């Protein structure tokens, strides 16, 4: 273990730990844009800079390993100035349409500007002026809002492996894009949307949730994806009895926040107008609406009316364990083992 001091408090951490991790252990807050524990450390956004005694310049705490006896200050005037100027620089090149931005209330740029009291930029001059990219049905890319943290790019390369996007160009003209500035549809993008979940600002917006609710109005429910057998964890964001957005659940031990296009963007079948909403009974060859009592009575009567061996059931690989259990219990209680499901399909 290595011992160091942060803001006058002593802390012991593993020798491989970074200053940021040591600070986290102490509960000392350090702002970050480009940092993710799952991705390569790049030290690009410079929001997490701190002062280390004996070092000439500020250091990025996310990618600087601790040293024994290190003395760190995270809250000095010098650190604050650097962070404020950093935010100031970002704001000088960022639209200020928070009023209608989907990310409002859940945007790290907004949060940090609030924290450091940066309300508008001191700098004026050239700004990015890119066209909105909204040709795919899943999400909109507004690169005017991009702060070039690179989380999306690293997610695409290091988590997904698709490698559909890159930071193109250099310097002030840097821009995240698919090769040849093509739309994503013409790239290896598989529309997993993990880049969207990773973006700390409002540069990537899922289309399905536009106008459906402010982040702070939404209730989060953690559940499991209804599609393939991997069992990825999903976070469903709910407002007024409607799932308005889905994200991968970072706390899920199987998927660690990862998802594919189906789990991410394919669950709004829930709201389909084609959903069945009442029982139906075939009368004169037509399926007509009925009450539950009528339908259940009819089914019960038919189930009772045959020998067990004349009865068969297909259970569901999409229903819960409890429901599958009850289904086979029901059929077995009625005297049949003719139970199967599409496990084999």
């Amino acid at each position, binding site marked *: 273990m290595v011992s160091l001091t942060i803001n006058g408090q002593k802390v012991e951490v593993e020798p491989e730990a970074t200053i940021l991790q040591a600070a986290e252990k102490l509960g000392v807050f350090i702002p970050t844009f480009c940092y993710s524990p799952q991705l390569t450390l790049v030290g690009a956004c410079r929001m997490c800079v701190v002062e280390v005694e004996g070092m000439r310049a500020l250091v990025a705490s996310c990618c600087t390993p601790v040293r024994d006896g290190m003395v760190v200050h995270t809250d000095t005037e010098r650190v604050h100035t650097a962070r404020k100027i950093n935010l100031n620089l970002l704001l000088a090149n960022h639209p200020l349409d928070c009023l209608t931005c989907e990310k409002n209330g859940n945007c790290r740029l907004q949060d940090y500007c609030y924290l450091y009291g940066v309300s508008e930029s001191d700098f004026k001059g050239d700004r990015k002026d890119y066209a909105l990219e909204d040709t795919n049905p899943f999400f909109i890319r507004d690169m005017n809002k991009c702060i070039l943290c690179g989380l999306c790019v690293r997610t695409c390369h290091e988590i997904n492996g698709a490698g559909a996007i890159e930071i193109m160009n250099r310097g002030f003209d840097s821009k995240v894009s698919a090769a040849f500035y093509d739309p994503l549809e013409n790239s290896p993008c598989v529309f997993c949307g993990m880049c969207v979940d990773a973006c700390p600002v409002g540069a990537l917006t899922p289309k399905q949730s536009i106008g459906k609710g402010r982040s702070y109005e939404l209730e989060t429910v953690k559940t499991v994806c209804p599609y393939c057998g991997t069992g990825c964890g999903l976070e469903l964001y709910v407002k007024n009895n409607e799932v308005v957005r889905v994200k991968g659940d970072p706390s899920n031990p199987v998927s660690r926040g990862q998802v594919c296009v*189906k789990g991410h963007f394919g669950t709004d079948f829930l709201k389909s107008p084609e959903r069945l909403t009442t029982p139906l009974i075939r009368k004169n060859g037509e399926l007509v609406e009925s009450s539950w009592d009528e339908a259940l009575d009819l089914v019960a009567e038919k189930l009772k009316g045959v020998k067990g061996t004349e009865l068969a059931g297909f259970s569901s690989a999409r229903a819960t364990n409890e429901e599958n259990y*009850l289904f086979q219990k029901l059929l077995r209680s009625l005297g049949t083992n003719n139970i199967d499901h599409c496990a084999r399909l």
Partner: protein
Amino acid sequence: MTNSIGEIEDAGALLVIGSNTTETHPVIGYRMKMAKRKGAALIVVDPRRVDLAEHADLFLQLRPGTNEALLNGLIHVIIEEGLADEEFVRERTEGFAEMAAAVKKYTPGYVEEITGVAADDIRRAARLYAKAESAAIFYTMGITQHSSGTNNVLAVANLAMVSGNVGKRSAGVNPLRGQNNVQGACDMGALPNVVTGYQRVDHRDTQSKFKKDWGVKLPVAPGLTATEIIDGILDGGIKVLYVMGENPALSDANLNHVLEALAKVEFLVVQDIFLTETAAQADVVLPAAAFAEKHGTFTNTERRVQLVRQAVNPPGEARADWVILQELASRLGLGWSYGGPEEVFQEIARLTPSYAGISYKRLEEEGGLQWPCPDAEHPGTPYLHANQFAGGKGHFTPVEYQPPAEEPDAEYPLLLTTGRNLFHYHTGTMTRRSSAIGPFKPEEMAQISKEDAEKLGIEEGDLVKISSRRGEVKVKVQVTEIVPPGVVFMTFHFHEAAVNLLTNSKVDPVAKIPEYKVCAVKLEKAVP
């Protein structure tokens, strides 16, 4: 899966056979690519040049339906070159000699003749796999959906055991289950021969245990499987069919046969969230709640039981399946009175040794548990067979190559194989109704090779008629290098081009899985 998803990225080698993982199990596909970036050897075996093949160290493009031969070939090389894990074989297994004798004739040269894979590549694959510190095998329906599916699975097990890749981290035999809770449905005894936790229904202990708990006597004789049920209806033996959340009218092989049965059955109840092709045939349709509208648990492909939570209310009068079942039970005088899914789960845990230690409370706190989890202190089991196999020793079973039940001939010169794509799922009931995915991939595109397209004078986007001995469909084509000449690929996501009108319902004699993966077809240009 014998092993866990979280172990994939640390494997030394991955053998992915008959699985288009990046499309069917994308997140597992991510992990495979991660493993590859971390230095694992990646070997992909598939008739199609699937996406994962682009990332592979070695891609073996075999003829559809020749998996056992290839697997036997790999085992042959491993034994021949002294790469077998002798200690493992000696200590942990039995039946090696018979199996070894059976693979003797599967020399790389012979296997090349059958599979079309170069003998050298077979040798290289065997070495990459057997020499790795830990090597994991993954397969999906590409292995099981064959008339010889059970043999394939046995051959996979032979391969893993011969190289000692069982019972340790980042190794094992890992079928990737297709549907979110297909593992759970099996675990729960939604099968004709077993009740929960694979306890045989005809076993005396099972009978008495369940009788005591349920207060009813279980039928002893194993029931009929899905395909047998369909045949049973056509024979007249089955009169009432209760379908909960399935769509056999689109997903089952040789659809015409199934549709005939659904029309014939005396009383059909379908409980679903949409009026599926099957529900449309029903006498009574019961509206059910979807995944986000109810509580419960799912068990994923790595045997992990996870909580499913309700986020919104079901639409209209729709009800959760468990509520509907309980309502019926009470009308049938069974006297169920579950207060909710948690109580049902407690009953499951009580009756199922492998689930005995699992509770909602633990799932909430620990974020899922992998069975076997025999008691409340047990941490769950990330990988199976750590110290011994369930039945004591691992058993090698000799496997012989059998050609597919139906092979191309003069009349039906092409080989049709089926699967899924990234954007859709199963019969498309959910994905096609998603506002984003539905319009993005609105129609089926059958894949054919450039060579075949040229031969038949077909271009990308043309409408063609594909027919087999059982039926025909009309579909647009995509001309691609993904499929080799002689092979046609279609998904079963689209009712407009229901591929299962063509497929063969010839089933594997043991597992009763139809041979979706191979059947003979012909293809001709169609007029719209």
